[in-house]
């Protein structure tokens, strides 16, 4: 059950947006499609919704092949980055839209709309127009609108992208709690790895129209499949063939087995964490993440020669 995409391909002119993409989204889960601009994540989301037609491949929703079904009939709730609010209708009218289409009776519509507005904490604003709401309120309205018709699947396309950082963080938490309550299979698209790791149970990392890796946040962080995933989900130092996370670099005052000589270039304190930039004997620049306590203990100064030992190194065989 849930959502299954098999072998999806989509081309826009010369640009291959999706290149043989297959994913599995378990029923009731909260999945993030994560990747940089142009990775195909939005295209994939829209293909699942039926807003894009695939050149090849299949989309199955809750076990049934939906590839040929038009968007109108797929029963997916879709939330757009820029809200797509019906500007000429009130908040009530927006949320009630899907129900009116389905010819619900007026009293039932009223009950359901108010129930949803309470859920998204917009009760009392039913008679306002979208341009009288803040960005965060508009997005909550869009969510209520999508949920009103009890969709099988909820799809969100960079839902918090147009909002301020603080509002974004609040809505993130709120979305997770909503999902905990409602258990609708949910997929959302984001380019922000912190957001994805904070909210989602499963992450699908995409790049250039292909899936690089999918798994939980821990899987991706600790066992990245390749350099792209490793550098996308966290900071990375490159040491020849190996990749090391900055917090896996140990700074020693005396040489030790497997350590390398390095000179301290710059020390930047960022709140609790401290970023120390080094240059190695061969000119490679790396940086290590240390705590303030460690910094004080080591008494590091710019220009000082120290020794770095990499903890967990990862290397990836070059793909054929």
């Amino acid at each position, binding site marked *: 059950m849930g959502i299954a995409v098999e072998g999806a391909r989509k081309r826009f002119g010369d640009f291959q947006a999706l290149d043989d993409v297959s994913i599995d989204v378990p029923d009731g889960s909260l999945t993030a499609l994560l990747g940089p601009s142009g990775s195909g994540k939005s295209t994939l989301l829209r293909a699942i919704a039926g807003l894009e037609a695939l050149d090849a491949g299949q989309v199955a929703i809750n076990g049934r092949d939906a590839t040929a079904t038009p968007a109108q009939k797929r029963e997916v709730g879709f939330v757009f980055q820029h809200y797509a609010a019906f500007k000429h209708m009130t908040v009530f009218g927006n949320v009630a839209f899907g129900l009116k289409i389905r010819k619900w009776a007026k009293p039932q519509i009223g009950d359901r709309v108010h129930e949803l507005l309470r859920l998204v904490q917009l009760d009392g604003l039913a008679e306002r127009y979208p341009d009288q709401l803040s960005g965060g309120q508009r997005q909550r309205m869009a969510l209520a609108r*999508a949920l009103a018709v009890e969709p099988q699947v909820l799809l969100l396309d960079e839902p918090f992208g147009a909002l301020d950082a603080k509002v974004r963080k609040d809505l993130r938490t709120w979305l997770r709690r909503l999902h905990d309550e409602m258990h609708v299979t949910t997929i959302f698209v984001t380019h922000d790895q912190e957001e994805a790791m904070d909210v989602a149970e499963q992450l699908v990392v995409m790049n250039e129209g292909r899936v690089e890796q999918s798994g939980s946040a821990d899987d991706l962080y600790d066992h990245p499949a390749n350099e792209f995933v490793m550098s996308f989900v966290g900071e990375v130092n490159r040491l020849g063939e190996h990749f090391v996370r900055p917090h896996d670099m140990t700074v020693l005052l005396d040489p030790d087995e497997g350590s390398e000589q390095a000179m301290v270039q710059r020390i930047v304190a960022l709140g609790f964490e401290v970023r120390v930039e080094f240059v190695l004997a061969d000119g490679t620049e790396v940086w290590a993440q240390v705590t303030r306590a460690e910094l004080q203990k080591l008494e590091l100064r710019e220009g000082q020669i120290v020794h770095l030992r990499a903890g967990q190194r990862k290397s990836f065989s070059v793909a054929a």
Partner: protein
Amino acid sequence: MTAKWGLRGLAFGYLGLLLLAPVAMIFYKTFEHGLGPPVDAMTSPDALHAIWLTLLMVAVAVPLNTVFGVGCALLLVRHRWSGNAVIDGIINLPFAISPIVIGLSLYLLYGTGGWFGPTLSEWGVKVLFSTPGMILASIFVSLPFVVRETVPVLQEIGTEQEQAASTLGASAWQTFWRVTLPAIRWGVAYGVVLTTARVLGEFGAVTIVSGSISGQTETLPLFVARAFENFDEQGAYAGAIVLALLALTTLLLMSVGGRKAKASGGSTPVGPGEVAISMSSAKEVS
């Protein structure tokens, strides 16, 4: 700042001499001898028929061009096609063609020697020197307005609301009726006002096509011309006043409509004399 007053003087002087004074003059001339003569002139059978016929032109041509205009705008904006530039060009043609030539073209097509003329008269359908021909002329001259006003508004609102409606289960028709049309209504309304004004004022084409048979195929503008040529000054002025009042109403509606269109989030609508960025160039820009 003499420059400022100099410019103002030139501007208002020109406008005054060219626009205001003549219009004021005709109001004066019409009501020079009181309300009686113009009202009499306008209630004569010929005049009443002319008014009625003019309104009939509006009642037929405007809805047809509105439906065509909205549909065509949807087609041009929502469906990319290489032929769109051609469609756009044809739609702008009525702006470049003399009304006399338009009249001639219908005269030729539906006349006794024309391609449609003989067949239609066999079926008993009279186009020339009769109402259908005049309606065709009215449609021709007022064709572009609704399309030109609707296209930029459609471009501006974007497709996201329509996509949202689709995911919520709305069919294409429901989406159009409940989401698209309300969003573009001010642009369409402005276009309707321009179309109506154009149909009301059409003269040259209708002259040729109608044969100007008084009491039968005379619209109000034709009535005014014939009255003047027959030295019926009161009739001519009275008719002119009616048309002028309609024109001023149009100006008012244009001004109000333009403000409403701007307020509802669009830009000022394309005026009848403006260079509308055609679909093709808009395509290249986006």
